[in-house]
Structures are given as structure tokens and as C-alpha cells.
């Protein structure tokens, strides 16, 4: 006798039938038009002090262009427009067509008398603050600008750039205001509010991009931001629990490290003597790093001023000078030395790591060097810290000879210009 189980063929038929139905439905949905709704990009949550200036610059670049190859995109006929949507109105490249808002590559502007190209946007930003129309705007909006509530109070170029994003109406470049408003109302949206809605760090990244593109050593966006708002960037946000992990890959100087560790990691000691750093007592390639004493002199030196005039260097304070020298060693080469310093430190320092080192270097003066028995190299113009009478002359002579043999003056200038060009080319690409 056969047991009366349900016979398999019915199960099979039924299964085939509903598989066919399901296939039909799924096929139909695939035939209908497909739209994928992407979530708007979330704000990038970064701890600015733990990224390298270059990372910040790259972040700014991708906010502006949505790509790291904007020029290539333009040449392919695509529009490089990122989350910030800046290139919709601002012109960043000669190849690009956008004239709704002031161009950001410093083309001539007959209305304001700008000479164009000879000055960079970074430099121009400093002029904006000094513009009499800016003073006028400050008075006009003493009670705060209507939409953002901000009273224009930028003091430096960097602060001006930051202010323009939070409060486009605070200063409207002549000829770019809304028609009929006599250049008092800007067509630009407030960047930290919808629809663009960048967060503070992103705005800092955009400003960093502008600064470093025009002047590779210039990296003051964070300072500017903090000076402008009078608070620490990232304050009020939830504290980031830990430092960026020491990820595998290139070594990076972190803010949590001591100057000693940073110098070791970055192998500064291979070339420089640095007071207060145990390992850095023997470097004979670069200058003695007593920036508390040297930096002010260097900025004031005729050579440095010449570089500033050429638009290659821009530091005005010792601090800026040190940062410039690390981030963009080619901007200014101490007379008597070659432009031999590695150019990749901007990849290797987090902002806070840079601060640690800069603080340490600023604290070093002639006295600290003398205390540790360190001396300048003979090819440094400032001359030895040790009075000639006490100097060990034999040693000195040898060193002078050697260094002159190795780094001739003529070669010097040539190299440093090549380096600068490289640096510029790099930041433009």
C-alpha cells in the first residue's frame, strides 16, 4: 500500500509556477527605470589637528571640485563640481568658464583695478581687508549682517577668506553684488547653512586649499579660524576620544608625541643640530635650529624680502616662518645652504604634530644652543655663537672648506628656484 504523501510533482509544479511569477515581477521592476537615491554626503568628521596640512588641502580640493584632478576633468569637458559647488560661480582655472562671482585665480579685474595674475588670491585676500570698502562695510554692519548675524571683523587675509564663507555679504567684491544693491548683497549662499552646509572643518579645509595652492608654505587657516571666532576649532563638538591611530604606512608626526620623538621619526637630526633634542647633536647639512633667535632675523633679511617680493615666501611671524620652512622648504633657503631639504614633510606632519615641533624650535635660542655646546655651521652668515677667541679654529676651517666645496653658491640659487617651481606645479595639479 502506497503511503499518501503529497506527490512531489505538485510541489514541483507549484514551485515552478511561483518562481515564474516572481521572475516576472523582478524582471518587470528591472525593466522599469532605475533611480538610485544617494544620501547626501555626511559632513566629514575629522579632527583637524590630526591631519597633515596636505590632507587638509586635499580635503578642500575635493570639497571644491569633487575630484583630485579638476584640470583633467576640465580638459575632458567635464565640470569639476564638488560638494561645496564653488566652481559653479567662481573661476579656478583659465580653462573654466564661470564669472558669476569673483574669480579665484586672480585674473585682472578692470573694475577694481586689479592687475591680475601677478597677485594671487591669497595675496589679494590681504588687500581686501585693507580696502576702504571693507571699513565701510564694518560700520554699515556694526549690528551684525542680516542673515548670519556676523559683524565683519577680519584682520588678515585668511580671516577674510573664512569670513566670506560664513557671511558672504560682509564684503562684496566690487561689481559682483546683486543688481541694484550697490554691491552690498552677495549672490553667494551662506556656506555653513543649507543647501551647501559645510561644517567648520570643511570650511577650514577649503581655505587651506586656497592658501596653499597660491603659496605652498602658507598654512594659517586653522589659526585664522581660531583667531576669527576666538575659540578652538572643534570646540563644542564631541571630543574625539583618541588620537588618530598610528596607521601603517608612512610615518607621521603626531601631536601626542614629544619633540624628541618627532625629530627622531622625521630624522631631522640627520641634517640639523637642535638644542634640547638628544639625538640631534651632529647634523652638518642644514642650519642650526635655534629659531627663537634666527627666525626674526631671517624674516627681516634682505634675501627673505626678495623672496617675498617674488611671491615665493610669505611669512611675517617667526611661527609662520618655521611652518613655511617645514611645509615648503623651497620657499626660502637660508643663504649658504642648498635647497636640499626633503619636500615631503607636508605629508608627514599632523597639524598638532607640527605645532609641537614649532613650539620647541621657537623656544630654542642662542643661549640654549650655547648651553648645550652647539654651534652654527660655518656657512651660516650669522657666524659662530662662540666668540672667535674661544673657537677651535682648526676644526672650523676644515668645516668651512668642506661645505664650500660641497655646496657652491652658484648652484644654490639655481636649485632653489627649480625647487620652488616644482612646489608650485605640484600644488596646482
Amino acid at each position, binding site marked *: 500500500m502506497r503511503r499518501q504523501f503529497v506527490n512531489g510533482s505538485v510541489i514541483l509544479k507549484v514551485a515552478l509556477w511561483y518562481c515564474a511569477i516572481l521572475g516576472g515581477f523582478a524582471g518587470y521592476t528591472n525593466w522599469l527605470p532605475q533611480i538610485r537615491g544617494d544620501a*547626501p554626503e555626511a559632513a566629514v568628521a575629522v579632527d583637524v589637528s590630526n591631519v597633515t596640512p596636505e590632507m587638509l588641502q586635499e580635503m578642500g580640493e575635493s570639497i571644491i571640485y569633487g575630484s583630485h584632478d579638476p584640470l583633467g576633468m576640465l580638459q575632458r569637458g567635464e565640470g569639476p563640481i564638488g560638494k561645496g559647488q564653488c566652481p559653479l560661480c567662481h573661476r579656478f582655472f583659465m580653462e573654466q568658464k564661470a564669472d558669476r562671482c569673483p574669480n579665484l585665480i586672480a585674473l585682472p579685474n578692470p573694475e577694481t583695478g586689479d592687475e591680475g595674475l601677478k597677485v594671487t588670491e591669497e595675496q589679494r585676500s590681504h588687500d581686501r581687508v585693507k580696502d576702504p570698502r571693507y571699513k565701510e562695510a564694518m560700520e554699515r554692519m556694526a549690528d551684525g549682517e542680516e542673515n548670519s548675524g556676523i559683524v565683519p571683523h577680519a584682520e588678515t587675509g585668511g580671516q577674510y577668506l573664512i569670513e566670506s564663507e560664513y557671511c558672504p555679504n560682509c564684503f562684496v567684491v566690487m561689481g559682483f553684488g546683486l543688481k541694484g544693491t550697490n554691491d552690498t548683497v552677495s549672490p553667494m549662499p551662506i556656506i555653513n547653512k543649507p543647501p551647501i552646509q559645510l561644517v567648520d572643518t570643511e570650511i577650514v579645509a577649503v581655505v587651506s586649499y586656497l592658501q596653499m595652492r597660491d603659496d605652498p608654505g602658507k598654512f594659517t587657516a586653522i589659526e585664522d579660524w581660531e583667531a576669527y571666532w576666538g575659540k578652538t576649532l572643534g570646540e563644542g563638538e564631541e571630543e574625539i576620544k583618541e588620537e588618530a591611530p598610528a596607521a601603517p604606512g608612512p610615518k607621521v608626526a603626531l601631536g601626542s608625541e614629544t619633540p624628541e620623538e618627532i625629530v627622531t621619526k622625521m630624522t631631522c637630526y640627520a641634517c640639523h643640530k637642535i638644542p634640547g633634542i638628544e639625538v640631534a647633536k651632529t647634523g652638518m647639512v642644514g642650519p642650526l635650529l635655534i629659531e627663537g633667535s634666527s627666525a626674526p632675523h631671517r624674516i627681516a633679511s634682505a634675501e627673505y624680502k626678495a623672496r617675498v617680493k617674488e611671491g615665493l615666501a610669505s611669512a611675517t611671524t617667526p611661527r609662520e616662518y618655521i611652518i613655511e620652512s617645514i611645509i615648503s622648504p623651497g620657499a626660502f633657503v637660508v643663504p649658504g645652504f642648498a635647497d636640499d631639504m626633503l619636500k615631503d614633510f607636508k605629508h608627514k606632519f599632523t597639524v598638532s604634530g607640527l605645532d609641537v615641533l614649532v613650539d620647541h624650535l621657537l623656544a630654542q635660542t642662542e643661549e640654549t644652543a650655547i648651553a648645550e655646546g652647539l654651534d652654527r655651521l660655518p656657512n651660516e652668515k650669522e657666524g659662530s655663537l662662540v666668540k672667535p677667541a674661544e673657537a677651535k679654529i682648526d676644526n672650523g676651517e676644515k668645516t668651512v672648506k668642506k661645505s664650500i666645496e660641497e655646496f657652491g653658491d652658484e648652484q644654490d640659487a639655481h636649485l632653489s628656484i627649480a625647487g620652488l617651481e616644482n612646489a608650485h606645479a605640484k600644488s596646482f595639479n
Partner: protein
Amino acid sequence: MIKIRNKTLFAQIMAIILAVPMLAWAGGGGATGFIDAGTFALVIEVGLALGAIILATVVKKMGMPLPKLVQAPILWAVCYIAFRVILQPPIPFSLLAMYMGVCTVCILLYCSLTTESWEEFSNPIAKMLRANSGGAKMSRYATFVILPGLIAFQTYDMMLPKFGEPIELRTVHPAPPASINTHKKVINLQTAENPFRIGDDGNYLKVGDESKYFGGNAWTGDVPVFLQKVQEGGQVFFGTAGCFFCHGDNLDGLGPFSFAFNPIPANFADSGTIAQLQESFVFWRVAKGGPDLSREAFPWASAMPPWEKHLTTPEIWKVIIFEYWHTGFFPRTWG
């Protein structure tokens, strides 16, 4: 024998009579000027349907009903001709495919409605697949040649490079933002009302109540407040902003510039555009134009300029009043 031939002849004549207007229509590309395309198509469709029913009845009465297996392809062909040729202007392929899909399924259902009709329909097929006669064998062979051939052709056709522009899927009415910022004012699109909907009593005129002003002349001297606003809106439309260059004198999207645009400008006279939208939505579109289209409105193909740069807020509201008044549509409300 002769009788049957006569009947067949009669059926053929009927078919030709029905086919003539269809073919004439298809050949002539539409009876332009005589009667508008839509009406003509409807007339033809209804005529065709009646004709088909009469034909079917006549044929049945004459004692020669068509077997289901023959009816099915004929029905299918009639549907195809109706949607492909008679319905003018031509509908896009995607829609045609959708319609024909429904028709195909329903014709199959029609053939299997009762057990008898299903047997009538399926027996010849079963016979063709199973019978051992020469004819059945031949048709089997033919099927197994033609079927792969068709699939091969389909594949070939799919692989063949096409030179048409790619299909562009536009979301015509994307979701608006919750609020917009125009002329230093935040406008909440959920709640914003047109400030110029003013009735004779000076109060807000509820949507729908403006119908009493429809068809009147807003350009005579003494008109109600509402019509004054319409008039001012008209000045914006034809003067200040010059909307008519694209959207047309009759607001039908056929302005002198319209042919340069792809997609062509919105046709306000169509029930699918402003009639489907809230006034605040229209305000958003006018004020912000193409540049402010939301993410989902890919590929943002809109040449509409952001008019807030050139018009004041009141001007925008007035031109909206004018557009609704002129087309006789009412804005959508959710209240």
C-alpha cells in the same frame, strides 16, 4: 463551396473597410488642421472597436467562428496597431511595451476563460507538439528553426550600436526643499500662500473661488483686485521677465525660443504641470530655477533661470497668479 468563398470575401472587404482609415491616418501622419489629433484618434479608436465587434458578430452569425488560436494573434495585432499607429502623436516605446504586455497577458486570459475555450486554444498547440502527422512534424521543425532565429535576431538587434540620444529619465516634479531663502526672507514651502490671492472683500481668496474671474478680461479699466493682480502678473510674464519667449503666448510651452531647448519648456496649459502643483512649489521653481533643482531631479536638465535675481518676490507671486488664471487651472492644495 461558393457560399463559403463569398463569406470569406465579405470578411475581407470588411477588414479592408476598417483598415483604410487606419492606413490613411498612418500614411498621412495625422489629419492636421482638419480635426485635432487627439479627437481624431479617439474617433478612430471607438470606430475600430465597434467595427471589430460588428465584424466578429457577423462572422460568427455566418457560421464560421474564428478559432481562439487565430483570434488571439488578430486581437494582439489590433491592439498593436491601435497603440502604435492610431494613437497619435506616437507614444514612447516604453509605454507601448507596457500596454502590449498587459494586452498579451489579458489575451491569454481571454483564451483560457472557460474550459472549452482553453481546449480550443491549447489543443492545436498540443497537437502540434505531440501528433505524429507530417504537418505537425513540419511545424515542429519550423518552430525550432524560427524560434532560435528570432532570438538570434533579437540579440543582434540589441547588440547593434544605436545612434539615438540616450534615454533621459527626468523627475519632472522633484520633492521641494522644506523652505527656501529668497530676497532675505525664508519661505516655508509647506505653508506659504500667495499674498495676492485677494478676493473682492480684500481677504484671502480660497483656492477654487477664483473660478469666478476665469474667462474675464483683466485689461479693462475697472476690474476686481484679483484681476488687477492678474494684470500685473501678465506684465511680468510678457514684459519684465519675458516668460513668453519660452513658455509661449498661450502658456503652452511653445514660445519662439522653445525649440532650442531639450527638454522643451513646461506647458502650463497641460493638466500635468502647474495644475498638479502647489503655488509654493511653482514659486520655488520660478525663484530658484534649474540651478536649485534637488538631487533627485537628475540630470538637472532645466534651462530655467533663477528669477529671484531679476524679479521681486511680489512679482513672482503675481506671475504665478497670472499663469493659473490664464490656463484656468487651480493650484493644488492639501487642505
